């Protein structure tokens, strides 16, 4: 654990009794004394606070000072509509490679005169190099290293945060604003990775501990570790980069078509024009051989990532693989997602997952497994 990086909240995690584990080069809390199950349920019922400071924070400054120039340049890297992103709004995006595979998934925001980008911890070094290589002609890529990132998630997140800034009540899902919280300049987005309403807060590192303590002192709020973060996102049907999506999966195979706006598709005003567009647009037109689907095992045994999927109870080759699987505390049963041939991807299709040498029935199911609870 000695060679791991620490977030600004490291000492506070230890003080709170967290169990620390290595994750993407950082020492991160996997759980607090409450435990994964109760942390998960608390977040769904009230509010949970996550340290996600390991994630990247990058600002793209257009040399011209005009946001449209940064947006136009960025559209070369992502299949999403960046130019149409309104001020103080953010959206989900992914960097694609030449084969249309996903280099990383990320959030991008229009903050008026610049683009704010939040990539995954495990990919941020490659992402930054990628952005510098492709954007430097028209933009300056500034890597932010002196800010923490907190996520406050759950149905009572708004009540809690509104005590520090009543304006947050006016924000809707995917709104983002620069706000003062407890004397610190913050960037607050109404979004998250749990399927719940909530906020992500970028805060100067020297103000992060005090802000975190203030939020944790509120009755609604408990600290939540990476363990529950994983089961929450899986119930929410959200992809984990490196498990459910990677360089070898395209956005269309991953069922992320919703993130590719019409304007970037065939016959759109800004059709294609991103790395790997040929393959992605072709797949949008004609479909894919395989698809990411939700899976609900019929029994109680969890089917974890790596479990092979079969079309029959006996014989035959594997037809697909589970990419994430866990026990869902809210749905009180096992859940998973994985890739299956498109002809076996219809909801209700019966498949078999091989667990400890036995084929166990599992059905293709709709995601999210728990209803999304966003403030639209």
């Amino acid at each position, binding site marked *: 654990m000695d060679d791991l990086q620490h977030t600004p909240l490291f000492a506070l995690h230890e003080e709170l009794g967290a169990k620390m584990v290595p994750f993407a080069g950082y020492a991160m809390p996997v*759980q607090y004394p409450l*435990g*994964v*199950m*109760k942390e998960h349920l608390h977040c769904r019922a009230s509010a949970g606070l996550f340290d996600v400071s390991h994630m990247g924070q990058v600002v793209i400054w257009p040399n011209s000072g005009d946001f449209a120039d940064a947006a136009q340049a960025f559209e070369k890297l992502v299949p999403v509509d960046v130019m149409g992103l309104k001020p103080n709004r953010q959206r989900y995006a992914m960097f694609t490679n030449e084969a249309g595979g996903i280099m990383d998934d990320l959030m991008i925001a229009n903050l008026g005169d610049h683009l704010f980008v939040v990539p995954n911890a495990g990919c941020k070094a490659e992402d930054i190099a990628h952005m510098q290589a492709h954007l430097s002609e028209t933009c300056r890529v500034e890597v932010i290293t002196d800010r923490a990132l907190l996520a406050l998630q759950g149905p009572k997140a708004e009540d809690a945060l509104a005590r520090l800034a009543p304006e947050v009540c006016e924000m809707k899902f995917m709104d983002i604003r620069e706000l003062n919280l407890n004397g610190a300049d913050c960037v607050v987005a109404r979004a998250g990775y749990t399927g719940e309403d909530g906020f992500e807060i970028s805060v100067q590192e020297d103000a992060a501990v005090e802000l975190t303590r203030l939020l944790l002192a509120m009755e609604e709020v408990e600290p939540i570790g990476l*363990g529950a973060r994983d*089961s929450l996102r899986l119930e929410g049907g959200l992809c984990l980069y490196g498990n459910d999506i990677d360089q070898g999966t395209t956005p269309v195979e991953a069922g992320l078509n919703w993130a590719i706006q019409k304007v970037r598709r065939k016959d759109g005003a800004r059709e294609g024009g991103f790395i790997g567009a040929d393959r992605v647009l072709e797949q949008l037109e004609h479909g894919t051989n395989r698809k990411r689907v939700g899976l609900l095992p019929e029994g*109680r*045994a*969890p089917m*974890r990532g790596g479990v092979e999927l079969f079309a029959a109870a006996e014989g035959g080759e594997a037809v697909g693989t589970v990419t994430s699987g*866990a*026990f869902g*505390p809210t749905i009180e049963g*096992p859940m998973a997602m994985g890739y299956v041939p498109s002809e076996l991807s219809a909801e209700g299709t019966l498949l078999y997952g091989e667990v*400890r040498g036995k084929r166990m029935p599992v059905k293709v199911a709709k995601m999210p497994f728990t209803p999304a609870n966003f403030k639209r």
Partner: protein
Amino acid sequence: MKYTEEHEWIREEDGVYVVGITEHASEQLGDVVFVELPEEGTEVTKDEDICVIESVKAASDILAPLDGEIVEVNQAIVDDPGKVNEDPLGDAWFFKMKVSDLSPMDDYMDEAAYKKFIG
């Protein structure tokens, strides 16, 4: 009561041996969400994987600590796996067995030795 290095406990009760996992093991596993037990009447040999236990974190095997026959299993922990975290030394026993060779019991730890073992 005796303890194994696999963090199982063994207790004699009216001529049969009751087996479960230790408090330390249940804490390390985290919230238990799934338990699979052998069928009653199964003949087992020492160190054979005979139960599966899955927590929110991972799957682990429970080994037969002795040679013998499974005479009773605890269906209550299959129906409510969370019991394993609540009362691992009591209500959440795993199985009872008739033992054919008791000699390995001499090598298993007593409570003091087990406490030292887990540090």
